[in-house]
């Protein structure tokens, strides 16, 4: 009983501490450019699903760079470490701290939907990054479109091989949404043309080691392949290595998705034909949040454009990689 009381007292203190901090963070940090007169300082909660992922780390650093352009924005960053229940708690805590807007990339959609809905209904703008929740109770979803990226990859093949091509696909995790979308878009891109045939398609689970195995087997069955379309760069790099060892790299065009630094370097070195950048919504997400706070109209769906990286522009885009 005594302990429980003590605990309650401590938590009250802790809460008071948080309340105190609120006033401090509302002021601009010393050294930062002063906010333009008349404009309010916005406190924006930001919950990233995980930082154990180079793409998401790059997303955070781009958000931080963008934050420097907005002295009236203070972003409170959280990392849910890929655990949905962590993220629910973090979003609740951000809400208690009194945020003006919420940016979130949900770990999973279902468990986060109620909390995000609650905040949105309070009139707080909610910007979803890369992943959606299960209803339309949010201000905007900012992110790439995997179908579009797949389609661009398909169209690239059509352009590079006007007479037709024999294709092997290394898919992502079977059944996962990005896998389905990158596969669907690619098929839209090459169209219904029988000149373009997908000889084989097997999942490489987005892992380089797994992709090497499945590609070797598909390559044995179809040594006449001309194009390899991999659902991410890790797998494309794996396939490129297999082809390199077999001395067939010059006969086969390897295409990846993501825009990983190593892949852009491989494109520059002629070891991959192309990669399609899967854009990171950090900077644009923050801009959307600030637009909403400043009363500007924000589109419900903001699709970030992808960049096609081929040998022609690889050297110039090396810094875009992650």
């Amino acid at each position, binding site marked *: 009983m005594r302990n429980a009381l003590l605990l309650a007292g401590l938590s009250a203190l802790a809460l008071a501490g948080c309340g105190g901090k609120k006033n401090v963070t509302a002021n601009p940090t010393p050294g930062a450019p002063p906010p333009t007169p008349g404009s309010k300082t916005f406190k924006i909660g930001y919950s990233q699903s995980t*930082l*154990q*992922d*180079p793409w998401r*780390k790059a997303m955070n650093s781009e958000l931080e760079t963008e934050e420097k352009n907005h002295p009236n924005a203070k972003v409170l960053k959280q990392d849910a470490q890929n655990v949905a229940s962590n993220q629910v708690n973090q979003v609740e805590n951000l809400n208690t701290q009194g945020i003006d807007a919420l940016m979130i990339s949900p770990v999973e959609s279902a468990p986060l939907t109620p909390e995000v809905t609650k905040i949105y209904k309070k009139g707080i703008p909610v910007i979803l990054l890369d992943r959606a929740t299960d209803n339309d109770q949010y201000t905007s979803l900012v992110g790439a479109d995997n179908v579009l990226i797949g389609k661009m990859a398909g169209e690239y093949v059509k352009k590079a091989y006007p007479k037709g091509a024999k294709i092997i696909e290394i*898919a992502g*995790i*079977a*059944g996962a949404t990005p896998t389905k979308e990158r596969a669907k878009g690619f098929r839209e891109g090459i169209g219904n043309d029988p000149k373009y045939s997908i*000889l*084989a*398609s*097997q*999942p490489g*689970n*987005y*892992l*380089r*080691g*797994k992709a*090497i*195995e*499945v590609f*070797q*087997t*598909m*390559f*044995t*069955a179809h*040594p006449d392949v001309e194009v390899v379309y991999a659902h991410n760069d*890790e797998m494309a790099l*794996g396939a490129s*290595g297999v082809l390199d*060892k*077999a*001395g*067939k790299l010059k006969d086969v065009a390897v295409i990846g998705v993501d825009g990983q630094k*190593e892949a852009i370097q491989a494109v520059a070195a002629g070891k991959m034909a192309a990669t399609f950048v899967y854009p990171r919504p950090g900077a644009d997400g923050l801009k959307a949040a600030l637009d909403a706070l400043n009363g500007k109209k924000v589109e419900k769906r903001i699709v970030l454009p992808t960049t096609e990286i081929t040998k022609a522009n690889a050297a110039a885009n090396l810094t875009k990689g992650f």
Partner: protein
Amino acid sequence: MASNNEQPQSAAPVRTRRPLALLQYRSLIVLLLMFVAASLLHPLFLTPGNLGQVLLQNSIVGILAVGMTFVVLTGGIDLSVGSVMLCSGVITAGLLREGHVGPVVAMFACIGIGAFLGLLNGIMIAGLRLPPFIATLAMMVGAISVGQLYSGGSPIIIGDKMPPFFQAFDAVIFAPPTTQRTDPHAFPGIPVAGLIFLAAAVIAWIVLTRMRYGRYVYALGGNEEATRLSGVNTRMVEASVYIISGMLAGVAALIYTARLQSGQALYGLNLELDAIAAAVIGGASLMGGVGNIGGTFIGVLFVGFLINVMGLRNVDPYAQGGIRALAIILGVLIQTRKKGS
């Protein structure tokens, strides 16, 4: 494991030659069935090029399965082999990229990290008396975490820093000239990784069948109490199998790192399950005391042939898991039928 004590009779018969020979025979039939079926299912299956590739592709899981056999023989299980391999691999990739140590040192570091993590498993299981399932489950999660902390979650790319000595772990010796390399009917050369797997299997076979230590491993899985009472330091033996398993995970990491030219610790390879499946298809009993390296070798090839032919035929990925599950159950059923008779 307490369950070992319930069947004290299994320790003695295992050491006689006849049931072992029978086991070999059974698993060979299972493998032959798979081999014939696969040859009928795809014309390219039975080509030197493809079979060489199967050996290459299964060398990593094969090396892990050899280590797993030691563990399973004692009645234990090692769920951490895949994670330990990734953890040693990612640290080795870092060592190679930074170039502070030579390739030989990096090689011993890679095997050493695996053996050290195996030692931690052994301490948890034989020293602290944690159930092997729990201890190695913790290591499975922990080793990946260490790898991710080390790499900051990004792949460590070795690239041009890859020393030729290290690259040899993924090389093919006596390889044909480049022009013939994609011809499946030509001699494909001998993959070094496959040789390492074969060497590991042969050494393990000698240790288990020709050395006193091997008898202790079988005896421990057959009846721990009786083994202890006959003066064997059972705790040492129990800990040692996890060190062997971890060390072999380190050896597998050499090949994995050379193949990927990089290191990254990510979940999703599920190599521990493949290794356990291979040992069990090969006739090993998860209760301990029963099993042998020859069977494990056959189990590795059995699953390897199946995965290969499904890939060659471009079987729907959604169906592949189910087919694999059925094949594993069938394989084990054919193995274990004799126990009823």
